[in-house]
């Protein structure tokens, strides 16, 4: 695993070292006037699923649009399957793109929409390819309904079917799990995993840590346009969770609870305030186990346990500062 606070010079992620990488960024940057959306990013990806993680506004969509050829880099180089995708429509034979915006032609049925994508890809049997793709995302029962009547999660699945109907080598998905219920998410994650097993390179963006957890064994963390970390998810997750946390507790007897907690090495500061306890811990998971046992042992009733810095932005901030 690598984590960086400065521009990454070389960050091969999935299988990229074994063969020519499917996706490669070399000091890529993109700015709009004075606003820098993507700043000096370098990484390469091979077959597998990679999660592109970052808070809203981090530059994930800009990065995906650069990879999809819809934005040229202001500096550096962006390569997909060894060539620049910018202003080269022929690259779309090998790329499938699921955009973040959820609009899909509302007047088409799901099957018509996916078949339309297959025909534009010049597939010889567009109807069969469309039906197969629809089945892969589990939309067969609703394939003859107008997309305008679909739920948000169903529209997302129709978009994914449209993007993978031509079996692309590289699949780019921008927030693909938006609007999906937990069951649909799991099914979609499994599907992406299967595609990766067949040698496809899949990059999906998300601002939700838990979405990445299930499939993205490798992740890229992007914050304020910079690559903050890249590598194995579990190691980065540990970094994210085992950072100093501030926790406030209200209980039936704050003083007695403070005495019980301070003895544990997971706690390195306790502050007794007028109506609450303020705790600092470096191991959130260990503290969660500790607090339950300590309160029971001290015969103290817990009224409230809250983390004051659990927002994803604060997690990313922490990663950048490291």
């Amino acid at each position, binding site marked *: 695993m690598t984590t960086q606070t400065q521009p990454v010079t070389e960050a091969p992620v999935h299988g990229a070292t074994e063969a020519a990488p499917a996706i490669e960024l070399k000091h890529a940057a*993109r700015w*709009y006037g004075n606003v820098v*959306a*993507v700043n000096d990013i370098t990484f390469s990806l091979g077959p597998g699923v990679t999660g592109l993680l970052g808070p*809203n*506004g*981090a*530059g*994930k*969509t*800009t990065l995906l*649009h650069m990879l*999809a050829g*819809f*934005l*040229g880099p202001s500096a550096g180089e962006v390569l997909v399957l060894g060539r620049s995708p910018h*202003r*080269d*429509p*022929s*690259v*779309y*034979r090998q*790329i499938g*793109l699921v*955009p*973040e*915006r*959820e*609009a*899909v*032609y509302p*007047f*088409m049925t799901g099957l018509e929409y996916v078949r*339309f*994508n297959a*025909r*534009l*890809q*010049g597939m010889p049997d567009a109807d069969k390819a469309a039906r197969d793709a629809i089945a892969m995302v589990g939309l067969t029962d609703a394939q003859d309904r107008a997309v305008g009547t679909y739920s948000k999660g169903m529209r997302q699945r129709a978009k994914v079917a*449209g993007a993978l109907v031509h079996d692309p080598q590289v699949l780019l998905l*921008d927030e693909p799990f938006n609007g999906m219920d937990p069951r649909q998410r799991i099914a979609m994650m499994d599907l992406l995993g299967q595609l990766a097993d067949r040698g496809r390179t899949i990059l999906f*963006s998300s601002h939700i840590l838990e979405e990445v957890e299930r499939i993205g064994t490798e992740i890229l963390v992007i914050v304020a346009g910079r690559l903050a970390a890249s590598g194995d998810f579990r190691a980065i997750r540990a970094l994210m969770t085992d950072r100093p946390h501030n926790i406030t507790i209200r209980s039936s007897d704050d003083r007695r609870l403070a005495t019980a907690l301070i003895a544990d090495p997971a706690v390195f500061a306790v502050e007794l305030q007028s109506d609450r306890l303020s705790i600092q811990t470096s191991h959130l998971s260990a503290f969660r186990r500790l607090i339950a046992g300590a309160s029971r042992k001290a015969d103290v009733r817990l009224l409230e346990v809250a983390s004051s810095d659990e927002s994803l932005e604060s997690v990313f901030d922490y990663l950048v500062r490291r």
Partner: protein
Amino acid sequence: MRGIALNSSIAVIPEIVSVTLRQLLGRRRAILLLLLATVPILLAILFRLADVHRIGAFTAGIMDAVALTMLLPLVAILFGTAAFGSEIDDGTAVYLLAKPIGRWAIVLAKLIAAVAVTLILTVASAGIAGAIALQPYGEEGAEAARGFMAAMAVGSVCYVTLFMALSLFTRRALVVAIAYWLIWEGLLSSLLAGIANLSVRQYALGVAGGFYKLSANEARVAPSTALTLAIVLVVVATVVAIWKLMRFELPGGD
């Protein structure tokens, strides 16, 4: 643009035309435009009932002032700006653009669809109105009707191409097109003789003048010049639209 076979781009044109037609002919827009297209027909019925007996009153007062100057630009603005504009606005353009298709084929397909609906609606409106009002005038009436049908056809192609190209440059294409129609075509081209060579309305009237004798005040451009300028406009606007689409960028947003 490497690696895209001409045949594969040509093969998808009917598919894109069909989807664009479905987009353009949404129920509300279709009803509104059908209602607009009936206006010249209703006026033609009134003209016939009023028994005016002046062919020039109908060609100038209804065919030119209503059908050519108001109905045609309005229909062309709505279809021309929506052919690409609505897809760019709602984000569905990406499904079309992220495909291995020559950008020229996408522009051509959009043009075919938008021109077809504009042309059918406006030419039919002028044809029916002309048949109703000009039937008593024999061959002269038929020539006038044919002239304005040709004018509507030429005007449809010019306006739609122009407004479609415009929609690739600005998200406010509808507003800019309406301003162009009211200020340039409506006001300045009538007041300033020099602008006649740069006015779609004058090209259309010029073409009508090739079928039927219009007054010098009405048709300021000779038929052959009008047709040549119209072709130049359509070719230039199409090339500009293709050029712009090749450089189309999706915003980052996040």
